[in-house]
């Protein structure tokens, strides 16, 4: 659970520092779908994916590079908590 909180903070940092959004802790609270609080057009999805890769030291597989994957906030957080290819 603690890891998730830390992961959420890191996602928040990616949203603000990587994408230039101005999302707050409060905005993220209780969010199940990221597009509730962020426009997720195709460019935003790519920017988000690349910024997450950089922040978490991972690489998303091709089939993950879809809006649906990044939109489900709970499963995204769970994935980032324990990525299959963790940073070396």
């Amino acid at each position, binding site marked *: 659970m603690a890891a998730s909180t830390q992961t959420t903070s890191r996602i928040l940092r990616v949203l603000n*520092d*990587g*994408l*230039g*959004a*101005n*999302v*707050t802790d409060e*905005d993220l609270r209780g*969010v199940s779908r990221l*597009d*509730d*609080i*962020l*426009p*997720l*057009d*195709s*460019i*935003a999805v*790519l*920017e988000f994916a*690349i*910024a997450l*890769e*950089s922040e978490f030291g991972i690489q998303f597989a*091709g089939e993950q*590079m879809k809006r649906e994957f990044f939109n489900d906030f709970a499963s995204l957080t769970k994935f980032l908590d324990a990525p299959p290819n963790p940073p070396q």
Partner: protein
Amino acid sequence: MIRRLLEIARRGPSNPAIITGDSTYSYPQLLSIAGNLQRQLRLQGAQPGSVVATALPIGLEAIAAFLACADLGAVFLPVNPSWRGAEIKWILDRIQPAVVLTSPDHAALWTNSGVSPDRLLPLDLEALLNNAPPAPLTGHPWPDDHPVVHLMSSGSTGRPKIVSRTNGGLLQAADAVASVTGMVPGRRVLASVPFHHGHGLSNNLVLPLSVGATLVLLPRFEPLLAAKAIEQHAVDLLWSSPVAYGLLADAEVPASALASLRSCFTGSAALPRKLAEAWKDRYGITIRNIYGSVETGIAAIQREDSVPAYCVGSLVPGIEAVILDRDAALPAGESGEVAIKGASVAAGYVGESELFPRLWNGFLRTGDLGRLDEQGRLYILGRVVPWINIGGLKVDPAEVQRVIASLDGVRECSVEAETNPRGLDVVAATIALEPGLTLSRANIIGHCRAHMAEYKIPRVIKFISELTTDVSGKRPKPWS
């Protein structure tokens, strides 16, 4: 256009025209597919002069549709497939297409907007590939002034306008650009800019095919997929946008994957200098600027490896430019509104001629602020009237403002561009609410999503107590 492609097919029947996924189509095969589609269009009621709307991603179907229309003498109207109800209705209020070509899962958007089902043609690629007997294209010699495509433009206000491009204008522009970019038969071009975008249709479709080059199709831009396609198919020429070049660099695509690239051009938005330098350092390739719009076609191209800041290159053959201060031409070195004249310049807007920019001695006013230097190089310094450029898609701040202001509880709203940490523009909204009311970021985004395409929704949302500015023009601080 089609007569030229038929000649290219006759001279090199095995030359590849399209590579998509693992499939390669020669010029004769591509023209055959377009012929089969043209037969379907005719059966559906399309004829010379009628408009065929297409809402399709980059793909063989969209290219075949363009060629089928060009041969039939129908007008190809590419529509952004991400557009929704209100945006589709906006088109239908101005143009009633004889046929709408779309993917089966997109069809309901059109019928819900009032298009009768008998005008819809959901595309079935298998049927096009296996349709017998063949229905060859005719190569009918349509005159130069025959309209061949209607493109959506974002002009000085950002609201789309419909620009008609003619058979002759499109081809002359392609020939002029080919002459200064080394676009010759055999070159391999990555088609990654959607065809509903003027830059995509002109440079990722018409230009390469008009010389007999090969298009490698990338239906959805993802940096690693793009790099894979470039490496796998030895792509040597890339026309794209700063967003795409930035994503390739950010994804740390290795230089070895892009080793086949010999020429890179960018349009749609200003190229951040930092990105140009990073790209050159990492990949050893200069990204060259192109400048133009749907209304003007490509007006200038950077030929040198290195140019001064804001320089977008020299004028394309057949294009003239002047810098205007209201109604007077300015000398070299002085800044004013850029105005362009040439065969590729559009004659007006479809259905809204009153909105077309006022000409100055035959020169089209672009709304861009710029200057020419003594060597005739063009510099673009900004806009006379601002819009927001999101990866080449233009967003009208006034449209976003109107949508947000229509939400109950919003008293005032202001929308403008904000630069993100990567040096690119995002949509930013500053909102003042009615006293005592509370709205969340989610409320604003949900309301916007119901009324407009995703790329127009603000990424930055600030709530403030008052929107009015003080005497110094400063805005009050956000609440948070």
